[in-house]
């Protein structure tokens, strides 16, 4: 459900960039999502269709690029890929780790004409 607000933000960013470039139509929107951010691609697509209607972003293709998570264990320093926020270090079993990557959420680029 929180994808509604996320999709509104995506459209706001895209429309502002497109207007600055004087573009009449947005063909593609590339969105980067860290694998641990709790946003669903399909929900964003669902809301996008509705929220972009009547704007220059209507009909644009949404392309999602996932970024793998990476973390460093606070106990033993081991670097690993946590698959969820409830993940233990595979080396020492500690659940305390510092996320280095995996919670990103940004509009990477757009294709306009």
């Amino acid at each position, binding site marked *: *459900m*929180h994808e*509604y*607000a*996320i999709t509104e*933000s*995506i459209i*706001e*960013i*895209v429309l502002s*960039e*497109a207007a600055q*470039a004087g*573009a009449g139509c947005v063909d593609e929107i590339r*969105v980067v999502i860290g694998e641990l*951010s*709790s946003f669903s691609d399909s929900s964003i697509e669902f809301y996008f269709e509705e929220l972009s209607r009547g704007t220059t972003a209507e009909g644009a293709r949404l392309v999602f690029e996932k970024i793998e998570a990476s973390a460093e264990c606070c106990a033993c320093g081991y670097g690993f890929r946590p698959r*969820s*926020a*409830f993940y233990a270090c595979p080396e020492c079993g500690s*659940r*305390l780790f510092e996320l280095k990557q995996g919670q990103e*959420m*940004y*509009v*990477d*680029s*757009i*294709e*306009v*004409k």
Partner: protein
Amino acid sequence: MKIEVKKNILARNDTAAAENRERLARQGVCMINLMASPGAGKTSVIMKVIENLPDRYAMAVIEGDIASEIDSLAIEALNIPALQINTGGSCHLTALMISSALDHLDLDSLDLVIVENVGNLVCPAEFDLGETGRVMIASITEGHDKPHKYPTIFREVDAILVNKTDLLPYCDFDMASFRQVVEELNPDGAVIELSCKDGCGTDDWCGWIETAINGSKTRLSS
């Protein structure tokens, strides 16, 4: 034509949150973002603070709900300023909503603002409001497995209230197992057992709030 954008989707919320945080810090006001599932006891937990916080502290409440003014009317009945935000379907409060609400409060005369977020364990954890502290409630009837299912929120809060402890004899809630998992996820988080029904734990909860208020004042004077 390709345009490089590289813009954080939550940037607008994060900017508004930083502005809220600065505004509160300037006035030495402590703002607590209270999050929990529907029915965990958010409003009751706030009522406990209203009833027990020493009179020298002035507080206000911002109520977030999808619809209705039931909660804000209940708070106002206790002569505490209460603002109702109806999100109209949105499952969480945003920093911009809080910013507008703060405009309607006399921050000069306040020590504490408690924000009751929309009942939900997922979305509110993703949106920074500019709060001073984050508190969540896990109630006994929800079961002890919730930290396994919603680890993000358990990781990110400063305190976890375990509410409805009066129901422990009637539920299969394993407190030791719950505490162990929470400790693993969030070793710095305070775990406070509480019953809004019989009042057990009220002193601990209100003591935590008082420490948070004084923390905001100390930061202001330093």
